[in-house]
């Protein structure tokens, strides 16, 4: 297990390096600079700006300087938020995004798995059809439709919950964003669990466990659920990417001060350092979550560790 973990972690560093280098190259080699869209600047001002941000240096120097900064946790100054470091923006936004994201993944797993199990155990009943319809809808509905519609129904018509805002993370303000974010993941988890649980429950070792006279609950939870969760665990890596993408929408719709909104605004303002910093942070988070999912998978299934 340790060897597997080390090998898996070793692939992480080069991948992150590739992300950093690629996004640096795309952004620096692209036509146009960050100051092009403002009013025409006099050449002297322009030269001063370029010098202040180090844009007059050769590309390689800029790259090395950026890497050096990253190693110290410095993502450089934001081009558009004057006098603000990108690292500060990230430090402000990340707790919000992480809270919402983690809550959404937890909610998705804690509701998706039981729904899938119920659907599998009562297959072809009303309950099963209900779960399948729900998961088909959950997968098909985009979050930028679900979010505003939930806000319309629960925030305005029923007036149960606030429509937008953060208020230092008070739970009332979290409900709608978290549900919006969790819905597609929950739907997919329920579908995966249903399929794999049905398959597992047909296998020989389940029959053996029952023949041994084990308690049915033990058969279901210990012998059945553990192998049935494998596809769910391996999906969780991909789910992170999904949740991060969804958080861009959810933070915009519900006005949350998270990093997703900064990324969108950075892209709209052509704030290159901000966009790059966000991409690197999100890339690292995605890789980390994939790593955790893989390790969990290796722990659940001994066969994976030895290839």
């Amino acid at each position, binding site marked *: 297990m340790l060897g597997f973990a080390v090998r898996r972690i070793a692939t992480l560093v080069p991948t992150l390096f590739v992300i950093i280098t690629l996004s640096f190259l795309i*952004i620096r080699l692209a*036509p146009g600079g960050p100051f092009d869209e403002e009013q025409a600047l006099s050449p002297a001002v322009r030269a001063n700006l370029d010098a202040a941000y180090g844009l007059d240096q050769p590309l390689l120097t800029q790259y090395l300087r950026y890497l050096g900064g990253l190693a110290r946790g410095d993502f450089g100054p934001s081009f558009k938020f004057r006098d603000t470091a990108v690292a500060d923006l990230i430090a402000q936004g990340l707790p919000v995004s992480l809270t919402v994201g983690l809550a959404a993944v937890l909610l998705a797993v804690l509701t998706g798995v039981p729904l899938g199990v119920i659907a599998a155990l009562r297959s072809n009943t009303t309950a099963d059809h209900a779960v399948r319809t729900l998961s088909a809808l959950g997968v098909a509905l*985009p979050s930028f439709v679900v979010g*505003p519609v939930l806000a319309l129904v629960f925030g305005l018509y029923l007036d149960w919950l606030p429509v937008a805002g953060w208020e230092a993370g008070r739970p009332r303000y979290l409900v709608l964003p978290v549900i919006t974010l969790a819905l597609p993941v929950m739907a997919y988890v329920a579908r995966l669990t249903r399929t794999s649980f049905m398959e597992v429950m047909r296998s020989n070792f389940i029959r053996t466990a029952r023949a041994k006279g084990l308690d049915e609950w033990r058969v279901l939870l210990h012998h059945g659920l553990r192998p049935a969760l494998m596809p769910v665990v391996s999906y969780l*890596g991909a789910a992170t990417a999904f949740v991060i*993408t969804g958080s*861009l929408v959810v933070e915009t719709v519900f006005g949350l001060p998270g990093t997703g909104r900064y990324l*969108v605004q950075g892209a709209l303002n052509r704030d290159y350092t901000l966009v790059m910093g966000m991409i690197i942070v999100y*890339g690292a988070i995605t890789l980390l979550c*994939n790593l955790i999912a893989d390790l969990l998978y290796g722990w659940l299934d001994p066969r994976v560790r030895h290839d």
Partner: protein
Amino acid sequence: MTERGLWLEGLKRLRRNRAAIVAGAVLLFMLLLAFAGPALSPHDAETLDWEHIAVAPQFSAAGHWLGTDRLGRDLFVRTLQATQISLLIGLLATAVSLLIGISWGALAGYLGGRTDELMMRAVDVLYSLPYLFIVIILTTVFARGNVYVLFMAIGAVGWLTMARIVRGQALSLKQKEFVEAAVVAGVATPGILVRHIVPNLLGPVIVYATLAIPQMILYESFLSFLGLGVQEPLASLGSLINQGARDIESAPWILLVPAGFLVTLLVCFNFVGDGLRDAFDPRER
């Protein structure tokens, strides 16, 4: 079984799939509506009707059938034009992703060995990233609102699944006698790829392409919703939904009309794609 027999079998299976048939009919109707509908309405997409700002749907021949937006533009015509744009970008992006995915997958699968491993490893790495971010970088650096950049960028990140499917097909085709015969006859590798490998894997590829279209439409709408995609005066379903989401309180139809169109479009494409896959892809049975 002969080629023709497989086709007929598939068609028969498809005809029995009622969900796919209904979805296909709805889809056809929507296509027709999107392209012919604007001519039916007494209004056009750009005129600002100052007498009717953000009015609810009206049910008279000369009225705004699905209401108007904040600037008094007719929502029926605007939504249909947005549907055209979304469909167009979806189709073009799918074409781009097909082009890249087929080339990449066929090359990897046919060449095999080290090359295959390296190429598919790259696909794996890209797969684990939130690919929409790459599109966001691209929309940051290139002129925003450029429809060409938009569908190229979306297509350029949507090819990964296609590459995997094509590679699998190419791997198995490589073993076939007619490919061996071509090798023995001295046909060069590019010739084999173009003449023998690619034409023979198009079947499953086309089936999966129908499932890729709604994905691409979704990406485009997502970007447009965030303001990074199609720009005014053009609109896609995503940018209309964005406008609608801004004042759900006073005028919910500005949100609900384009949202309804988008969801119907996505659901129908998915049903048709699933139906085609079940009917024509033997691996699924």
